[in-house]
């Protein structure tokens, strides 16, 4: 039972990550490979503030989201005029920088050892001590992220994003604030990625850098692309599929060491699928 709830928590966690990444990849045509970095920023921001200061769970989540917004904002600044694949290269480089910050800034992040002793989630003073309650917390957060992302995607704001992903020049010739809209959607996506990170930190009560590598970025991207970018439900389907796949590999009793490589191979295949399934409009032409 606990195991099933844990898998459910993972579903919701990855649903937040894929939904927020899809705001960039699917709806805006911005192929970002820095999502795990932002997820990590959120996880570490929550870990650091909640182990160093007497701060509530909600406060820690809010600070983590703010950190995600700030970092994401900085990433989006050079997005003006950076088309298609150049944005991917830029975010790839930033992903590397973010990982090495988490891995190397020992005094702040604990380096490769990470940070432990992060308090479990508590809402308005009441600690969520059963896994069922925690699952409910993840479900609610995923629900809110989903609803907000859908609102944005189906609004006139989303229409500008959709126009932008295909033809920036035409969108500008209609007087749209293309740069502002890009920065805003990046900030929103970063806030949600950091939210996932903060929830994860408080759930596992321990963080280390290995969960926030470029491989993780590509896993999230693979989920989005497999599920169908820009389709509202697609990213969630992608998250459920790949989380289930990873758990199934564990379940059929393959030794841990082999399961790890097998998982890498599956992700590698997913990556190849990305190259072939890469839909029209992903790169801003």
């Amino acid at each position, binding site marked *: 039972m606990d195991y099933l709830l844990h898998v459910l928590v993972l579903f919701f966690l990855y649903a937040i990550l894929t939904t927020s990444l899809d705001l960039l990849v699917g709806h805006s045509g911005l192929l970002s490979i820095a999502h795990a970095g932002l997820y990590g920023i959120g996880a570490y921001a929550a870990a650091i503030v909640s182990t160093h200061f007497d701060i509530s769970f909600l406060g820690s989540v809010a600070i983590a989201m703010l950190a995600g917004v700030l970092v994401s904002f900085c990433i989006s600044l050079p997005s003006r005029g950076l088309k298609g694949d150049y944005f991917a290269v830029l975010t790839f480089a930033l992903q590397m920088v973010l990982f090495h910050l988490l891995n190397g800034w020992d005094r702040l992040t604990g380096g490769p050892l990470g940070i432990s002793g992060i308090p479990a989630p508590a809402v308005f003073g009441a600690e969520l001590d059963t896994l069922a309650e925690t699952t409910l917390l993840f479900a609610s957060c995923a629900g809110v992220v989903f609803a907000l992302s859908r609102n944005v995607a189906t*609004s*006139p*704001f989303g229409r*500008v994003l959709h126009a932008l992903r295909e033809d920036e020049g035409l969108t500008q010739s*209609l007087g749209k604030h293309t740069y502002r809209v890009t920065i805003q959607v990046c900030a929103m996506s970063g806030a949600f990625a950091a939210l996932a990170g903060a929830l994860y930190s408080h759930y596992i009560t321990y963080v280390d850098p290995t969960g926030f590598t470029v491989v993780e970025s590509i896993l999230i991207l693979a989920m989005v692309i497999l599920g169908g970018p820009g389709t509202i439900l697609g990213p969630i389907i992608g998250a459920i599929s790949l989380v289930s796949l990873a758990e199934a590999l564990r379940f059929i009793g393959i030794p841990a060491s082999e399961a790890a490589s097998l998982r890498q191979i599956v992700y590698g295949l997913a990556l190849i699928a990305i190259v072939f399934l890469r839909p*029209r409009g992903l790169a801003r032409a």
Partner: protein
Amino acid sequence: MPKTPTLQCDGLFKQFGDVRALADVSVRLSRPGIVAIIGPNGAGKTTLLNAFSGFVQADRGVCRLEGLELSGHSVAEVARLGIARTFQEVRVIDRLSAIENVMLARPGQRGESLLLALASLGWRTEERVNHAVAERALESVGLGQESNRLALELSYGQRKLLSLAVVQATEARVLLLDEPIAGIHPERRVSILNLLRRLRDDGKLLVLVEHDMPAVREVADTVILMDEGRVVAEGEPSDILQRRELVEAYLD
């Protein structure tokens, strides 16, 4: 004191490598009016529209909208000042439906603010109005039946008509139209020419680049003939298109 022209440029130069696309172009255009820019391929007609709409920064010279200098303004700023344009190679957003393309073009939408979009609040009424306006714009170009089809499913001619509906919906005072008539079926052509006249009668300035001389003769108030980046002649269509030396040199 003479009244300020709606759209003007003075001493415009633009060089692309060895090609002089614009070589000392000065024009003054006032609304309401329909101005046709004609001339051989490569004369610099599209480049002139690009200079007015901010897509090309001139090497020398200035463009002005109602006296306001346009150089230094981005494409989007120029658009918000009241200049809309279509493209010779017909650009629409493929993966939006016809009606979404037109609704996108509506100015000053509150729903384009992230906060109102997140809250899904405060823009539904405006959206309904824009939907109705967009439907009328589509009907005016004969695409009333196609409103829910993706732009990529439309034919070349339909996409061109869609781009006309799009610029109408911007409510810009100045419309720059790059070959709006060429490639349009004769039956539809009449109604498009009527639409252009109606837009002029609403007080707009329409600047068309057009190779279809009968259409120019029918609809234009003024014709500007360009060649090799220069304005060669300017006047009423009946005058310019009758002058044998011009027709023989540039239009045959």
